[in-house]
């Protein structure tokens, strides 16, 4: 199993961009599989990768994710091909639907039918990237626009039909879609002991398309930290777990909460969310049990983390995606070297 890193987009908000570049350049030297940018409230995923493409040699560059409602499928294809070219073929296009608060609030687009839109959008992006003339009749997208003056165009630059497309999905149907049409999965909230909750639908989708789960590059987000003081680690990560269950999305649609519910933590997930939404954040944090924190993150002693990493590898995960850990750039790079070593050791034993 490999290690990937995510740089998020915190550098917009005070983090030192040059330090992050140094971190990614170190990851490039160490042999990290790929680096993933992020997109959120006012922060986008493309510029950071364009910059990193010019500063790195080997590492894969992925958007984790570009939100589909914010740009036309053609615009996404244009950015994807620019990143592909600038990185000499190292780019992986990660797409996701984001959520209604952002899509309808910031972008002014309807969030209805996200699954169907994601399928159609991905198909159009693929047509454009393949260099096909883009004419499409979907339920949500019709190109060229009916009644307009436009005619179907094809890319004015060389295409790249092998540019991989990853989908960030969590719900059962969208996981099936990932297995059916994507080259990779940008996963979160995967509990190794209950991996089939998320990987099962991907497998079903893949088989429906005449493929298997191993045809999909499974990149799973997982915080990794080693310490003999396990209680401190748990207490440090407990608030993040509570935020994921209670603060992400809305009370009605929290995909993360739903995923943990399907993994057998339903009672806790509901209680944490209830407390969080009522405003009792301390209560919500306190309601997260130790075993849930340990199940969700690769934290603990060296043996515990190795065990957890092996569990992910056995489930079929291809790469764990880590965020920077440490206060300084030097600490973060040291942590990354430790993590790469640990994952190699752990999964060599498994093999």
């Amino acid at each position, binding site marked *: 199993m490999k290690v990937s890193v995510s740089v998020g987009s915190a550098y917009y908000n005070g983090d030192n961009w040059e330090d992050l570049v140094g971190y990614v350049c170190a990851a490039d030297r160490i042999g990290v599989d790929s680096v993933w940018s992020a997109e959120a409230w006012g922060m986008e995923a493309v510029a950071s990768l*364009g*910059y990193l493409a010019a500063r790195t040699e080997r590492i894969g560059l992925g958007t984790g994710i570009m939100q589909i409602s914010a740009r036309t499928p053609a615009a996404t294809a244009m950015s994807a091909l620019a990143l592909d070219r600038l990185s000499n073929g190292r780019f992986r296009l990660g797409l996701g639907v984001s959520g209604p608060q952002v899509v309808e609030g910031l972008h002014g687009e309807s969030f209805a039918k996200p699954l169907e839109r994601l399928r159609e959008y991905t198909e159009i992006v693929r047509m454009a990237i393949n260099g096909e003339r883009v004419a499409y009749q979907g339920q949500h997208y019709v190109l060229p626009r009916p009644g307009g*003056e436009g005619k179907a165009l094809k890319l004015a630059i060389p295409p790249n039909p092998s540019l991989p497309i990853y989908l960030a999905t969590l719900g059962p149907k969208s996981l099936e879609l990932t297995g059916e049409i994507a080259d990779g999965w940008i996963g979160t909230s995967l509990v190794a002991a209950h991996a089939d909750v998320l990987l099962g639908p991907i497998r079903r989708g893949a088989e429906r398309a005449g493929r298997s789960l191993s045809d999909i590059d499974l990149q799973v987000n997982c915080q990794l930290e080693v310490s003999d003081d396990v209680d401190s680690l748990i207490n440090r990560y407990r608030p993040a777990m509570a935020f994921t269950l209670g603060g992400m999305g809305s009370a009605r649609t929290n995909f993360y909460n739903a995923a943990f519910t399907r993994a057998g933590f339903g009672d806790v997930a509901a209680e944490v969310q209830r407390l969080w939404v009522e405003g009792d954040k301390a209560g919500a944090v306190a309601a997260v049990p130790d075993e849930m924190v340990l199940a969700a993150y690769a934290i603990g002693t060296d043996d515990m983390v190795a065990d957890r990493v092996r569990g992910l590898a056995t489930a079929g995960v291809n790469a764990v995606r880590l965020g920077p850990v440490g206060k300084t750039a030097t600490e973060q790079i040291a942590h990354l070297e430790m993590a790469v070593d640990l994952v190699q050791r752990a999964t060599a034993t498994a093999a």
Partner: protein
Amino acid sequence: MTLSVGVMSVGVNDGFLDYAREAERLGVSSVWTAEFWGFDAFTPLAAIAAVTDRIRLGTGIAQIGARTPAMLAMNAMGVQAISDGRMLLGVGTSGPQVMEGWHGVEFSRPVQRTRETIEIVRRIVSRERLEYDGEVYRLPLPDSAGVPIRTVARVSEIPIYLASLGPANLELTGEIADGWIGNSFFTDTAPVFFERIAAGAEKAGRSLSDIDLTVAVSVEFTDDVAEAGRRHADGYAFTFGAMGSGSKNFYNDAFARQGYGDDVAEVQRLWRAGDRAAAAARVPIEIGLGTNLIGPPDVVRDRLREYRDCGVNTLRVNPIGSNTDERVAGLGQLMELVDEINREPIGRLTEPGGVQS
């Protein structure tokens, strides 16, 4: 007058990063990308940011409508954040063929859409909690789960340039933009553009001199002016004949307002009739020569002076060359010529923009 360069004509490859780096070394003020139906305009700027320190980074232009106004702001903020504040956001409406054909987005009310897009971008960059009640855009989407959002990104103010050709869009440029991206522009008819921009500026309590006026030209150092001028003129047959739709070609309208209406109409007719050779031959050589800098260094220097004197602040030059070295050499020569002109006293006109008040 300062010089800027465009890079998309070079292609997005290793050479284009070298070219941007050399342009910075030569003292070029800004580098501009473009957006058609190939690469997007922001990503190449991000790569240039990684190999340069000072040169400013502009989209020339990013298509309004290809992204939501918020994403347009976010793309610009992305480059701004990683370039230490060097971003210049150039936007334009593109045309109905690309918007409706390639992007699937309605091309309607382009001037109003542009106005609202720029207003929304400014609010997002300045970190207002975003609520907008426009004629084209309403944010959050009414009756939805959307919430007014304040970006978490903190970046410095981003100058906004508008590419405009028609009178209403030129006035809008004067009213709300920090800069103008011009093309299809002849120095002797500069007032066709600048008077409209000035009128818009005055509406907003500003003057033409508050707006960075930029125009793009190709540059070819040659002793055979007739041959090169003819070649550049021939190239316009596609612009007049194939661009736009039957009813609307923004470039043709701009040339018509500068006295070339009959020529442009005839070129378009010949092109549509399938006689492309005759269409090319029908383009007056004055159009090739008047929208580019073509000739030996003395002639190019005189042409540079014409742009400076009519009020252009930034000339975006595209030195013709078959490889990066040749283009860089041409750029170096241009920088020397423009330095010479900038040391001269300003001659014929004293008002910025060439508009006599």
